[in-house]
């Protein structure tokens, strides 16, 4: 308790997560369901903030891993995976949704982190190309539903030994997702605050110097990228269970752009601000998109440019670092 009072960072954590836990007391059931969905976006945003904010790896196609997770979950719970038709457990789906994106990221990383052509921008550009191609493949692949995607994906089932409990009603869904988000946050934040987290940030600032200090920077980048993809896939799986529907836009260019905007506006330098950024931007979009129409995205793009120029730590990020008392 003393640590909580002296360490403002933990106090902010407590206020944010406590506030989120109390949210259903103040808003209606429909909105609770809506926010539960934004929580999965928040988890996704944390996965991007981990690689981008901590070790300076920018990805323009992070939705590939989110979408891969969502598709893995859906295909598995719909019993469409050859050989595993009768095993439609949500646990299997979640496991696949974590393992497959991690595997994909690891393979890709093995190729990319050894290049130095465009000074570290390779990942950003190659991921952009991956996202566009992944979306096209999914659009043309009849097995994965093609353009229509996969419908009536069952909700996440937390049952075991013949007992079933589906996260379907807004309230259980909200708390289930919140618990998952908190779990991811605690896991990633403990990495960020550990000694290894310091090395990650050093790597983001100056990779050659970090390497001179004896750190295996490529191996570190590879493992963080893999971890980030696993988390993104997990978020995608939760999303698929909630939304009940996956389609090619989930794996492509559009969502990749959106998550970048959430993280940039919220603040990439801390996981918490990226997480909140996703929720806040989505809530604002809900409130404003009808009024502004296509102007919403125009405004968001311009706001994004302004934040990049003047507040590189993001709108919430500036407040966060000010509250916890660091420059």
């Amino acid at each position, binding site marked *: 308790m003393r640590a909580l009072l002296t360490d403002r960072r933990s106090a902010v954590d407590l206020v944010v997560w406590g506030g989120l836990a109390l949210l259903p007391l103040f808003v209606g059931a429909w909105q609770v369901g809506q926010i539960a969905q934004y929580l999965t976006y928040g988890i996704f945003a944390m996965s991007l903030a981990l690689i981008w904010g901590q070790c300076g790896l920018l990805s323009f196609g992070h939705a590939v891993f989110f979408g891969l997770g969502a598709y893995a979950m859906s295909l598995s719970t719909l019993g469409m995976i050859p050989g595993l038709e009768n095993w439609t457990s949500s646990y299997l789906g979640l496991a696949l949704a974590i393992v497959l994106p991690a595997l994909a990221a690891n393979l890709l990383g093995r190729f990319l982190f050894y290049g130095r052509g465009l000074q570290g921008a390779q990942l950003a550009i190659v991921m952009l190309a991956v996202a566009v191609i992944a979306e096209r*493949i999914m659009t043309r692949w009849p097995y994965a539903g093609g353009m229509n995607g996969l419908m009536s994906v069952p909700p996440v089932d937390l049952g075991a030994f013949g007992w079933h409990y589906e996260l379907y009603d807004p309230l259980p869904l909200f708390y289930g997702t919140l618990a998952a988000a908190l779990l991811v946050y605690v896991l990633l934040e403990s990495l960020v605050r550990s000694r290894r987290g310091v090395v990650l940030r050093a790597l983001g600032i100056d990779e050659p110097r970090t390497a001179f200090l004896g750190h295996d920077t490529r191996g570190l980048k590879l493992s963080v990228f893999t971890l980030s993809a696993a988390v993104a896939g997990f978020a995608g799986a939760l999303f698929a269970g909630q939304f009940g529907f996956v389609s090619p836009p989930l794996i492509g260019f559009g969502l990749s752009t959106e998550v970048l905007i959430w993280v940039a506006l919220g603040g990439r330098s801390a996981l918490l601000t990226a997480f909140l950024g996703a929720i806040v931007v989505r809530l604002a979009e809900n409130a404003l998109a009808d009024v502004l129409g296509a102007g919403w995205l125009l405004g968001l793009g311009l706001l994004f440019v302004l934040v990049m120029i003047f507040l590189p730590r993001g709108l919430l990020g500036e407040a966060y670092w000010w509250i916890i008392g660091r420059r």
Partner: protein
Amino acid sequence: MDQALLLLLDAANYILVIVLVAMGLVIVFGLMRVINMAHGELFLLGAYTLVMLQQAGVSYWWGLIAAPLLVGLVGLLMEELVIRHIYHRFLDTILATWGLSIAIKQAVILLFGPGAQSTSAPFAAQLDLLGTPYPAYRLFIMAVALLVVAGTFYLFFRTRFGLAARAVIANRQTAACLGISTRAFDRATFAYGAALAGLAGAVMAPIMSVDPQMGLGFLIPAFLAILVGGAGHLGGPVLGAGLIGATDSVTASLWSPVLAQVVVFTMAVVAIRLFPSGILGGGRK
């Protein structure tokens, strides 16, 4: 035989347009270390300038002249308002230009609607090449692209301006000490790179459907071309575009366009692994 010739011509066409787009990107990257993610939208603006002028009753040729000028002006504005403030923060320039690309695309959707516009080529004649009819306009595109690429090489390797520009690329501080205004070069190159994208957009507009999403389809192959060929030399994008364009055209005509993208992408990633700084190499830190 006919089939092979057609394939060859179409591939050459595609390659030359990618070179045109990639050239603008690589000049800006070489001089300012800025990766311009809004380059695809500059291409888009070039195409829309032509469409707009043609719809207003202006002839195609004026449109072709106006597009690079207008888009060059947009590039100048971008440099002055955005890039100038952040060009020492590498990743942030990528993101800021990315934000600009979103904003430009949305502005185009607001002004012209999300649908496709069409415009007509100034001449619809078919030329007879070894017994195969081929649209003369596509040959015209190739001629324009060749001319511009040759002109750019001339500008950078045979003029005083080019010498100074290469000096800035090689070592910005030393160039500045020698009395070269690096600010002026930043402005000029950014505007020139943008104008190249605008010209590419205008010249391609008549043979494709002009819609707000068209920019990305050229940006990605252009980037891959630079990654494959190398960003350290003007010849890099030419070589890269040749490899990318040829692979794409051949695979697309033999199998399917989607498979072609996958093959091109895989090839590009493998090339990046084998030649980390491009096939022509950077050679410079």
